[in-house]
């Protein structure tokens, strides 16, 4: 079975771990707020969240690395 590639986005410090948790909580809250304001676009199915989750996932290492 193929080994996973190097994972540079793993939090390396306690602060980065906390930032990662806060980052995902904030992302979820923003998505929920947008859904509350316009449910047909954000809250009808998980497939509609895929683009948002992809963007949040791609940005995570960039944001988390800023905190050392």
């Amino acid at each position, binding site marked *: 079975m193929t080994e996973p590639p190097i994972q540079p986005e793993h939090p390396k410090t306690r602060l980065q771990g906390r930032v990662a948790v806060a980052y995902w909580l904030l992302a979820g809250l923003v998505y929920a707020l947008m859904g509350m304001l316009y449910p047909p676009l954000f809250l009808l199915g998980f497939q509609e969240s895929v683009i948002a989750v992809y963007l949040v*996932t791609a940005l995570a290492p960039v944001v988390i690395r800023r905190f050392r």
Partner: protein
Amino acid sequence: MSWAAHDLEPYLIRWKIGAAISLPFCLLGSYSPDMFTKWAVYGLDFSGGKELVSDPVQLHRGWPGVGFTHTLIVPLLVSGVIYLLSKQKMWAVSFLIGAWAHVLSDTLDSVGVMVFFPFSTWHLHLDVWQYVGQAGRRRDAVAYYTSLGGAWDIFWAVWLATRWRVLTTAYFDTQLFPKDPFWPWLLRKSNRTFCLTVYRASAFFGFASIVGWMMWALFVNEFNPHLDWSLGGPSWAPRTGPP
């Protein structure tokens, strides 16, 4: 019917049972009973009023209808097909457990499911909250998230929140990727960001939709914006039993 519970249950099943479960196939199983029918139940318009069928309850949970999707036997047959095609016992079992979790969760509403189909069309329904799908997605959202249905979703969200580490990249890399051949296959077809997206999307949506729908039902929506956690509620909803 349950809402975000179907999005969150597979993560806790994976955490409880461990490496014998393929999360993607457990999620697929959890989504499968409603995958091809929800749009017909609700109609094509969020606000309702564009019904596609005359009797959504009969269609969704009944026979004749596609109520066989919410039975124990049909997921067993589908998982058999998955095994025959893939030779992956893990995928077949994961699909089956995810689908059965969905079916058993749906016994909590007032319509329930045909657990003994095809031997009987009797519905197991525990009447914890009313089935309001026939009133359209908007009205169903109000009913579900102001009733014990919303509490059911919160239960799963809180449980998963206490196990939040299962959603981390480290958990994915050490516990999922090396133990399920689905992930290396997906990585060859896409990239790592997409794999992590597939891994987390359902949980992200599950958490966000509970918060979003509850806030919408209580603070934006103007139709009965009150919590009603009485058994069989909400009290304003029409009593709807098995077809």
